[in-house]
């Protein structure tokens, strides 16, 4: 029983699902839940590195040779079952996802850990890695719905009335956006009879030579709206940032990573299906610009620290959308690289806020202050996080934002590079405002009543923040061990 038959890409999705189901059943018994949670977190962390890059056909039958060497390439190769592609970039995405999932689970390990909470995080890992790897649009739709449910459940875990209101809004929008994606898939299925993305890609290229059919445009519009919801773009950035700010900060770090990776994965699918439509890239660009600008604008005006970070996360997702919208190969590589970097950098800030929330129990920035000397290394790490998010040189986001800006100007949109630069400056202003209100302002009431020796908060947060800063620095100083994989991935797309 050699290893590569066990550690197959499908296991990356199957194992977290099994872990989620077991944890759900063990809800009552705390000790067992903690043990199973630790085991599942460790395995999820290790799995991406063990499974080697491969294309995995469910049910084992590879592409069916419709006709040998037929001149007309229409559907000469046909993927009958669901196909999972697991290459270097998917490994990168899922490895980062696993790190943040373990952060979300292990940070609150000191208090009572509820089985369902860890189960929902495992469900999130399973569905996001499935969306990243899957090559079959219906499989992606199913796991997007599971993703919506798990994120809503993680928001409900807080238990406050605000959380319930946000969860119901999120579920209603998730239901509608999911149905619109399914309607798009239904139209594609009725016209082409296929579900596999690469087959559809070939079938559509043949179909487009004779002019773009209206059905294709409506299907693209519907799936595009679904993509807007999943990635928190313009009309849905309010509900998305609401979800981030209502969930626990360590969970919000995990969720914003999910959203950015789903954004990139879904965009790749939509591009391969609908690149024929002329205004497609312009639409992605417009949506990216709007969500970037509105995200930062709202971040500047917020009074709650978690809402501020949520809007900054949405703005960075908008920046990735802009990069994808520009459409040249350099821009797309840079924006995928930026999605990876920004997921890491934002996580640092969310973790630092989780410590602050742990102490002050309030989100409102007006009631915070004076925590600089009370929380050990966290303020210093938070400062590094702020530099990381706004793209200061030693960090990784500098590498990617710099590449996006150059790609934007070389692609003939100098105005875009000006806008992107101003957005990163405005992000720095917003985050500095947050940093000042938390740490530098003079002490507040909660400080005086109990004399705060170095406050007891879970040391896990500091460990994870140091780890994330180290990764950010590592990628920032040596981008060449991450960037070429992304370039190969973009070349294999073959569509840009």
């Amino acid at each position, binding site marked *: 029983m050699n290893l590569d038959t066990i550690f197959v890409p499908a296991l990356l999705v199957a194992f977290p699902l099994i872990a989620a189901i077991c944890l759900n059943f063990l809800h009552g018994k705390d000790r067992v839940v903690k043990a199973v949670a630790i085991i599942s977190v460790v395995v999820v962390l290790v799995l991406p590195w063990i499974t080697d890059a491969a294309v995995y056909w469910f049910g084992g039958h590879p592409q069916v040779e419709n006709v040998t060497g037929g001149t007309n390439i229409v559907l000469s190769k046909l993927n009958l079952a669901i196909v999972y592609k697991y290459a270097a970039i998917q490994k990168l995405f899922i490895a980062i996802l696993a790190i943040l999932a373990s952060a979300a689970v292990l940070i609150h390990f000191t208090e009572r850990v509820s089985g369902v909470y860890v189960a929902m995080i495992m469900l999130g890992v399973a569905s996001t890695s499935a969306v990243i790897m899957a090559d079959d649009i219906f499989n992606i739709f199913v796991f997007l719905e599971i993703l919506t449910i798990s994120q809503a459940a993680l928001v409900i875990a807080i238990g406050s009335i605000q959380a319930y*209101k946000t969860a*119901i809004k999120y579920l209603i929008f998730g239901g509608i956006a999911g149905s619109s994606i399914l309607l798009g898939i239904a139209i594609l299925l009725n016209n082409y009879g296929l579900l596999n993305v690469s087959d559809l890609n070939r079938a559509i290229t043949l179909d487009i030579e004779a002019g773009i059919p209206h059905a294709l445009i409506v299907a693209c519009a519907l799936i595009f709206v679904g993509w807007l919801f999943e990635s928190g773009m313009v009309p849905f950035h309010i509900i998305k940032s609401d979800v981030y700010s209502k969930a626990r900060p360590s969970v919000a770090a995990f969720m914003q990573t999910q959203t950015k990776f789903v954004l990139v994965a879904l965009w790749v699918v939509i591009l391969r299906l609908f690149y024929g439509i002329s205004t497609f890239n312009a639409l992605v660009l417009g949506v990216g610009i709007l969500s970037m600008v509105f995200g930062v604008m709202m971040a500047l005006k917020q009074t709650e620290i978690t809402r501020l970070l949520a809007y900054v996360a949405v703005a960075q997702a908008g920046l990735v959308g802009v990069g994808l919208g520009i459409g040249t190969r350099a821009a797309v590589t840079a924006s995928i690289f930026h999605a990876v970097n920004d997921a890491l950098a934002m996580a640092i800030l969310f973790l630092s806020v989780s410590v602050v929330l742990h102490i002050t129990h309030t989100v409102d920035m007006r009631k915070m202050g004076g925590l600089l000397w009370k929380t050990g290394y966290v303020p210093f790490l938070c400062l590094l996080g702020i530099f990381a998010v706004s793209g200061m040189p030693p960090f990784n986001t500098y590498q990617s934002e710099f590449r996006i800006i150059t790609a934007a100007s070389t692609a003939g949109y100098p105005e875009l590079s000006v806008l992107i630069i101003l957005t990163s400056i405005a992000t720095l202003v917003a985050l500095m405002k947050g940093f000042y209100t938390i740490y530098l302002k003079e002490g507040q009431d909660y400080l005086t009543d109990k004399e705060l020796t170095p406050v007891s908060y879970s040391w896990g947060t500091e460990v994870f923040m140091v780890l994330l800063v180290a990764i950010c620095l590592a990628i920032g100083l040596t981008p060449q061990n991450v960037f070429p994989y992304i370039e190969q991935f973009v070349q294999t797309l073959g569509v840009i």
Partner: protein
Amino acid sequence: MSLETLFQPMCFLTAAGLVVVGLYAVIFMDNLLKKIIGVTLISDGVNLVLITGGFNKIVAIISPEQAENGVTSVIYEGLKEYPEFAAQAAYPLPSALVLTSIVISVSIFAIMLAIAIKLYNHYNSMSCSVIFKEVDE
């Protein structure tokens, strides 16, 4: 345009009708439960679209040489021996998809109702204007 050939377009129309009614309910109805019913109607309508797509032979995978001589819809080679069954068979793929899609929409529906009960207990009113009033408590 006998009633028989009209059956499939009519099914598409009912599905479209269901989706429109569902969307109307979600957007314009003030009661939270009515909005949740709207979401169910939309997902029912979309499932109906999926199934009616596979009703008769509109959907068929055309092998390359058939595409050359302009074949648009084809009976599967394997079904050559049963011509009357092949003539009426529906395309099996959508019905497999709709099975999962129905189950998913039921699970989302159940969670939404649970939250609706929780919100009712707090606000003891089901109308969205009361629950989602812009209040900074």
